[in-house]
C-alpha cells in the first residue's frame, strides 16, 4: 500500500481497512505510545522487531505484519493486562456499548480467565472533578488521552497522573477543578468509563441512541456533531470528526445546548389566544396579507435559520412583497470567542445570509418598523432583541400584526398576533454556511409528533401557495437546496445529498479566523491514503 509521507503505521493500516487495535492513540493528540496494544511486527535487516504502530512512521519498502503470531500475541496480552484490574462493572457503566476496552476485548481479547489473584482496584469511584465531569479512577486504563487533551488544546492542564506503577491514578491538581470550556471532550476520548458526563450518566444506554449527522448551531464555527436521540428525546450532542474544522472536539457550550432545543418550545399554532391547525393558520394569514399593500409587509430573516428557510423567505418577498423590506438583524450581543473553536457570532448561518444577499444588520428596517411603516411583520426564527421585552414592545408597538415563526416560546413570540411553531435544526434538514465559508449539511434526527410543526421552508412554501405565488413547489428542504444550487453560482453543481459530510468550502470571503490558532493539533495522518 501507499500512504503519504510521514504517516504512521497505525494510520496506514486503518486507512487501508487493515484492522489494528489501539487505545492511547488519538489522531489529534501527540503520540504517547503507552498502551502497547497496536503492536506490529516489522521486518528489518536484523530480523523482525515488535514495536508500536502509532510511533513508527511508514518507510519505503517497509514490511509490517499486523496479524503475525508474535504481533497477535502482543496485542492480546496488552489487552489482558488492561482488563486485569478493570472493575468489569459494564452493566452500570455509561461507556458500555462504546467502550474501547469492551469492544476491542470482544474482537481481539483473550477469553481464558487466568488472573488467579484478587483484583486490585486502582482508586475510587465517582469522584466529582468538574462542572460536567465525573471521574471513576478504578475504570481508568491510564492512556493519558485526557491529560494530553487538557495540555494541548485548552492548555489548562488540570489533570495529571499521580503515584507510580500499579498505583498510578489520574486525578486533578489539588484545589483545581476540571472546569475549562472544553472539558466535555475528555469524556469522549476516554476509551473507558473513567470520565463520564454528569449530563449523560445513567440517562440512556448508548445502543438505544440513534445518531444523526448534524452541525452545532451554537456559533458561526459550525462544529460537526451528531445528534443522539431515542424516541424523539435528545440525550447528547457528540462531536463528529472533521479534520479540517473541529477535529474531534466541541466546546461545552455547544455540547450542552441539547436541552435548549427541547425546552420551552412553541408547540401549537396560535392565532391571538386561540389554538388552530396549521392549515387554518396559513389560510387566515394569507387572507390577512391579501388585504394589505405589499409595501406594508416587512420580513425578518434569521442567521439562526437554515439557508433554505432564508432563501424561500427572500424569494417570497421578491415575488410577493418588497425585497428591500427583508433583513436579518443581528441576534443579541456578541458572545465570547477564543483561539480554539468559539467565535463571537453566536449564530450558525450569518455567512449563509451573506451568500443569499440578505442584509445582516437590518438597523434601518427595525427603525422603519418602530416608526410604524409596516402593518405586518413576518419574523422567522429570530429574536432581534434577545429577551428584552420592553425593547421588543417598543419596536413592534405600531405593527398591526406580528407574525412569528419560532422554535422557542420567546418574549417576542408572546407578543405575536399569530405564532407558528417551527422545527429546530435537530428536527429538520438543511444547510448552514460557517464563518470560514464552509457549507455544511444537517439532517433531521427525528420527526416531531405534531404534524403541524413543519420546517420553515415548507411553511413558507405553503404560505406562498395560499397567496398563489408561483415557483414554490418543494416537496422537502433538500429540494429547496437543489434549487438554490442552480440559482447561486457559488453552489453550482451541488445537490443536498452530494455535500460531503465534512462540508464544502465555498468561494466566499471568510469572516472569521481558522480554528486552533496557536494550537498544535495537526492530525497524525497527513491525508487520505492512496491505495
Amino acid at each position, binding site marked *: 500500500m501507499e500512504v503519504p509521507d510521514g504517516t504512521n503505521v497505525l494510520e496506514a493500516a486503518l486507512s487501508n481497512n487493515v484492522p489494528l487495535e489501539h487505545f492511547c492513540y488519538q489522531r489529534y493528540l501527540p503520540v504517547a505510545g503507552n498502551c502497547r496494544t497496536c503492536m506490529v511486527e516489522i521486518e528489518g535487516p536484523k530480523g523482525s522487531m515488535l514495536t508500536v504502530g502509532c*510511533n513508527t512512521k511508514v518507510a519505503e519498502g517497509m514490511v509490517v505484519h499486523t496479524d503475525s503470531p508474535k504481533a497477535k*500475541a*502482543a496485542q492480546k496480552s496488552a489487552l489482558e493486562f488492561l482488563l486485569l484490574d478493570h472493575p468489569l462493572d459494564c452493566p452500570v457503566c455509561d461507556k458500555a456499548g462504546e467502550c474501547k476496552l469492551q469492544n476491542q476485548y470482544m474482537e481481539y481479547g483473550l477469553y481464558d480467565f487466568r488472573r488467579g489473584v484478587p483484583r486490585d482496584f486502582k482508586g475510587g469511584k465517582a469522584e466529582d472533578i468538574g462542572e460536567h465531569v465525573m471521574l471513576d479512577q478504578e475504570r481508568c486504563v491510564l492512556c493519558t488521552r485526557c491529560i494530553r487533551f487538557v495540555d494541548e488544546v485548552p492548555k489548562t492542564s488540570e489533570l495529571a497522573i499521580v503515584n507510580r506503577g500499579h498505583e498510578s491514578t489520574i486525578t486533578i491538581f489539588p484545589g483545581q477543578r476540571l472546569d475549562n470550556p472544553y472539558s466535555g471532550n475528555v469524556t469522549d476520548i476516554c476509551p473507558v468509563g473513567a470520565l463520564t458526563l454528569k449530563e449523560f450518566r445513567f440517562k440512556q444506554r448508548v445502543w438505544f441512541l440513534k445518531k444523526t449527522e448534524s452541525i452545532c448551531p451554537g456559533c458561526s464555527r459550525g462544529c460537526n456533531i451528531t445528534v443522539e436521540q431515542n424516541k424523539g428525546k435528545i440525550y447528547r450532542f457528540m462531536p463528529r470528526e472533521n479534520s479540517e474544522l473541529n477535529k474531534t472536539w466541541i466546546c461545552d457550550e455547544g455540547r450542552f445546548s441539547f436541552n435548549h432545543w427541547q425546552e420551552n418550545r412553541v408547540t401549537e399554532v396560535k392565532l391571538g389566544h386561540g389554538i388552530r391547525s396549521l392549515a387554518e393558520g396559513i389560510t387566515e394569514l394569507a387572507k390577512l396579507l391579501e388585504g394589505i399593500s405589499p409595501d406594508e409587509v416587512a420580513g425578518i430573516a434569521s442567521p439562526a435559520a437554515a439557508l433554505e428557510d432564508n432563501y424561500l423567505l427572500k424569494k417570497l418577498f421578491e415575488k410577493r412583497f418588497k425585497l428591500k423590506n427583508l433583513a436579518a438583524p443581528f441576534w443579541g450581543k456578541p458572545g465570547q470567542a477564543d483561539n480554539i473553536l468559539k467565535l463571537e457570532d453566536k449564530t450558525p448561518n450569518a455567512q449563509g445570509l451573506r451568500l443569499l444577499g440578505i442584509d445582516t444588520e437590518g438597523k434601518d428596517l427595525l427603525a422603519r418598523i418602530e416608526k410604524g411603516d409596516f402593518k405586518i411583520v413576518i419574523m422567522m426564527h429570530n429574536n432581534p432583541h434577545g429577551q428584552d421585552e420592553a425593547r421588543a414592545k417598543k419596536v413592534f408597538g405600531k405593527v398591526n400584526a406580528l407574525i412569528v415563526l419560532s422554535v422557542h416560546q420567546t418574549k417576542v413570540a408572546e407578543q405575536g398576533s399569530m405564532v407558528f411553531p417551527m422545527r429546530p435544526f435537530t428536527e429538520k434538514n438543511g444547510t448552514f454556511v460557517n464563518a470560514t465559508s464552509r457549507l455544511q449539511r444537517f439532517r433531521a434526527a427525528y420527526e416531531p409528533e405534531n404534524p403541524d410543526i413543519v420546517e420553515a421552508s415548507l411553511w413558507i412554501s405553503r404560505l406562498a401557495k395560499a397567496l398563489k405565488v408561483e415557483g414554490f413547489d418543494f416537496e422537502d428542504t433538500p429540494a429547496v437546496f437543489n434549487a438554490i444550487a442552480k440559482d447561486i453560482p457559488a453552489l453550482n453543481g451541488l445537490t443536498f445529498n452530494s455535500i460531503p459530510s465534512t462540508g464544502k468550502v465555498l468561494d466566499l470571503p471568510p469572516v472569521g479566523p481558522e480554528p486552533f490558532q496557536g494550537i498544535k493539533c495537526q492530525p497524525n495522518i497527513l491525508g487520505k491514503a492512496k491505495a
Partner: protein
Amino acid sequence: MSDFQPQLTKRFETKDGHTLKVFLETGGYASLKNLFAKKPAEIIEEVKASGLKGRGGAGFPAGMKWSFVPQNTGKAVYLVVNADEGEPGTFTDRFSMLYDPHLLLEGIICASYAINCHTSYIYVRGEFVEQINRLNAAIEEAKKANYLGKNIQGSGFDLEVYVHRGAGAYICGEETGLLESLEGKKGQPRIKPPFPAIVGAFGCPTIVNNVKTLSSVPWIVENGAAAYAAIGTKESPGTHVFGLSGHVNQTGYWEMPFGLPMMEFIEKYGKGMKGGKLKAVIPGGSSCPVLTAQECADLTLSYESMRDHKTMFGTGCAIIMNEHTDMAKILKNLTHFYRDESCGQCTPCREGSAWEDRIMKKILSGEATTKELDLMLEIADNMEGKTICVFSSALAFPVRSFIKKFREDFEKYCKPASVAVLEKITAN
C-alpha cells in the same frame, strides 16, 4: 593481575584524594594536554578504537554513541552524567564520586570536548548527599583552577558542570526517564525515536553516560586507545570496578581488568563462600538473569562471557547466594521492588509487575498451584520487549531465569495443579 595499573580507583585509598591538590599530584587532569591537542572527531575515533563500552548496564560502545550527536544544528549539545546508581546489588559509582570526583570531572571535560558540549549535568541519586557535596566542592575547585569555566587551560574550550539531585526513583536511571526528571517532569521514559542523541535534554542533542564510562575516558585520552584495548579481553577492553555482595566472606569492590573467572573472583576476592556451597549468582544487578553454580564454572567477568551464558554483564556487581537460599523468597523481593519502581506508563509493565508480585505473594502463602508458575513465565514473555523502556524486560529476565532454573524452590510452596480445578470452581 599484578601488571595492571588501576585507573578508576587509584586515589580511593589516598588521603584527601578527592581534593584538587592531591588529584593533581597524582596525575590528575593530565589528559587535557592530549585532549586539546586533538580535534573532537579524533577523540571520538580514539574512544571508538579503545572499545570502551557503556558501564551503565547495556554495554553500548561509548565512542559510537558520541558519534550519533549531530553537529552544527544550531542547538546546544548536553552531556548528562547518569549518577543515579540504583540497581539492586550495585554500589561502586558512589565511591567513585566520593573518593575521586575530579576524575569524573576530567572525564566530563574529555567527553564534552569530543561532542562539542558546553553544559553538562551530573544527575545524582538524591540520597547521595555526601557525594553531592564532594562533587560540588570539586566543581568549585576546578572552576577556580580553570579546569572548568571559560577557556579551560587556555584551550578556548568552555564548559560548565552542574550537579542535579534526583529524588531516588529507580526508573530515573533509564536515560530518558532521567532526562524527563532533569527537566523537572515526572520521571517516565520517553518513547523512542527520537533518541536522546538527537532530541534529549530540553529538546537538544544529548549524551547520557554512566559515571564509570566517563571516568575511564581520561586514561584512554592520555595513554591511547591501543593501550586501553590491550587491557582486559578482546571484546571487553579496559578495567572495571567489580562488586561482590551476598554470601561471601568478604564483600566489597575491586578494580581489575575484564576477564577474571567468576569462581576465582569469589574465592580470591570474596574469600570464599559463606554458610554453604554456591547456589546462584546474579551477575550484574538484579535485572540480569540469574545463573546456577554450574553455569558459573566457566563464567568470566566480561561482556562476552555473560552474553554466552545468556545473561548480562549489567553493572558488574554480582550477588552471590549459597545453597540455603530460598529462591522463591528472593524472587518475591525482586518482584516487589519492580512493582514499586515501575513508572506505570506502559500497560504490560504497570500491570505485569503488579500481577507477578501478587502471584509471588500467593505462592509464598502456599495458596498457588504449579500452574501459576507457568502463568508467571507467560506473563514474563508478555512483558519482555513490549514497552517503551527495558524496565519490564528487567523484571521478565529474573522471573524467567529464577523459575526455570530453580523451579523446585517454587514448587515446594505450590499445590499440584490438579487440586486447583476444584478450587477454581469455588473461587472467584
